């Protein structure tokens, strides 16, 4: 405990001193300006992070502390009981929350992951054709695919439900994944089309000189170079898939396929799950996309801004 504390304070001191040095340097240049910038930065970070911090704070304390007024701004006492009961450790499991959450997280991973893989594979081939090859109706097809970006995603909700129902696919992974892929493809095509266009043609031409077919050139030369663009399309497709709610609310009916968003909404609707537990569930449901976004944020920035400035 003390060792942890000392290590923690050493880190804190190190962070403090770097921050202080940076601050001093900034202040020495243009004091009023630097203070203004720091305040702006603090406000932006507070706005962006406070709700997330608040969920962590509540999930890490006891129900009586969370339900006390005025609010505690740091978790005191700091306990892991909420997470223990969500994971069902030590026999404190609550109404099967742990099994529901575990299974729905797995479902989310399968659905978002499956949609991501299928979207990227289909989009790489199609975007390459749009960017590099000549064929009839190319412009018409390209424009009509991108036009679906301007339509609301839910425009097709009811017919998609009825199509899946008539095929007997309601409450299957396949239905969810197919619907996601059809929704994510236009954006993935747009990102990859722009990325392929930024790659010099000379790279493939060198491969052609060596006798490679266009397909071989795509797989051996273009795809490796386009990895940042492919990563951008992939991470964005995965995040979009993980966040879906209305489509799975309609297309899935039980725990065998319901993703974590549907389960979190259902638990929240029961109004009997304590807020400490609810926040622990929320933190766990947001953990995968949150960590991915923090690690891969430069690909997200690249993907989101692809071609938007034209």
């Amino acid at each position, binding site marked *: 405990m003390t060792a942890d504390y000392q290590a923690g304070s050493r880190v804190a001191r190190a962070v403090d001193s770097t921050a202080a040095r*940076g601050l001093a340097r900034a202040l020495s240049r243009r004091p009023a300006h630097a203070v203004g910038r720091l305040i702006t*930065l603090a406000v*932006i*970070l507070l*706005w*962006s*992070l406070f*709700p*997330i911090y*608040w969920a962590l704070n509540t999930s890490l304390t006891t129900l009586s502390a969370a339900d*006390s007024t005025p*609010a505690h701004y740091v978790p005191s006492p700091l306990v892991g009981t909420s997470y223990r009961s969500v994971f069902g450790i030590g026999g404190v499991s609550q109404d099967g929350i742990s099994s529901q959450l575990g299974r729905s997280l797995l479902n989310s991973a399968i659905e978002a992951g499956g949609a991501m893989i299928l979207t990227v594979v*289909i989009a790489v*081939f*199609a975007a*390459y*054709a*749009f960017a590099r090859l000549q*064929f009839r109706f190319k412009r018409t097809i390209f424009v009509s*695919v991108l036009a*679906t970006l*301007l339509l*609301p995603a*839910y*425009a*097709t*909700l*009811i*017919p*998609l439900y009825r*199509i899946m129902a008539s095929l007997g696919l309601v409450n299957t992974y396949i239905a969810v994944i*197919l619907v996601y892929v*059809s929704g994510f*493809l*236009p954006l993935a095509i747009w990102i990859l089309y722009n990325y392929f266009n930024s790659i010099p043609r000379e790279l493939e031409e060198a491969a052609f000189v060596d006798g490679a*077919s*266009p397909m071989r050139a795509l797989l051996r030369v273009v795809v490796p170079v386009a990895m940042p663009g492919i990563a951008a399309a992939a991470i964005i497709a995965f*995040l979009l898939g993980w966040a879906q*709610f*209305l489509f799975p609310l309609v297309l899935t009916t039980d725990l065998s396929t319901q993703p974590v*968003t549907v389960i*979190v*909404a259902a638990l*929240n609707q029961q109004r009997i799950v304590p807020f400490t537990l*609810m*926040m622990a569930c929320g933190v766990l*449901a*947001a953990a995968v*996309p*949150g960590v*991915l*976004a*923090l690690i891969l944020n*430069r690909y*997200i*920035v690249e993907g*989101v*801004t692809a071609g*938007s*400035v034209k």
Partner: protein
Amino acid sequence: MSTRLRRQLLPYILVSPLLVFIGALSFVPTVDTTVEAFFRVMPLDPPTAFTGVGNFRALFDNPVVITSWVNTAVYVAIGVVASVVLGTAIAVALRRRFRFRGVVLALVILPWALPSVVEAVIWSWIYNPTFGVLNSALKSLHAIGGYHVWLGLDRWLTIALIEVVQVWQITPLSALIIMAALQSISPDLYEAARVDGAGPLASFRRISLPLIRPAVAVAAVEALVLSLNIFDQVYILNGIAPLGSSVMLQTYVTTFEDLNFGGGYALSLLVTAATALLSMGMLALLYRRTEGAVT
């Protein structure tokens, strides 16, 4: 010869999976919605029959549907204005290089990356009338005398607070789009303005604003499409009560709770048409002004 044929066929082979997906799961359903909106479709009470504009008339005779349209207009107005203004402010504040800028950007993007359902559940706890931190913080700052019930009592307050949750989620997107445009502006322009004696505000108005207008248009259209179709946040924070209901929520209720598929189709068609018309109109408006500003 066969290689030549293969080469000619290759593009079609490469785009065919895309065409199958978009055709079967986007175009066919869109056409289906357009057609079925004029039919009486009740899965539990057949038969299905042509009703002309019957579904639409029933929608406009329903006060709850009218309420949801007015509510949605307010969601859109708040959502577009707030996310574009905040997004521009964040973009301006974070556009230049500084220490830890990468970390700050990663943190700012976070609300965009998380599921809106989870975010809405978190905000419902923040807005909680008895134990919520909003009441507690405002009371500590002496901004309010007693605790308020934020959601479900006052219609406009409920809508505004629900839209805050969506604005919180989509603002990073606007910020990124506008920041990319700001960064593509040549520093020479600002330098020239500085030499001519223009202050920071003047150079923002005369240089940045005209040049980022296309990006602002894109951000505004994104916010428009998302807020016109707001569902998750309303479902969690308002439930299916008419008070804060949105058109998309009403579409869901009509279709999957009342099992009136025809009504759902009609409402869905109206939302789609409204989204397409408004977004194209907004794009045209903002783009034309850009050209005017540049020339």
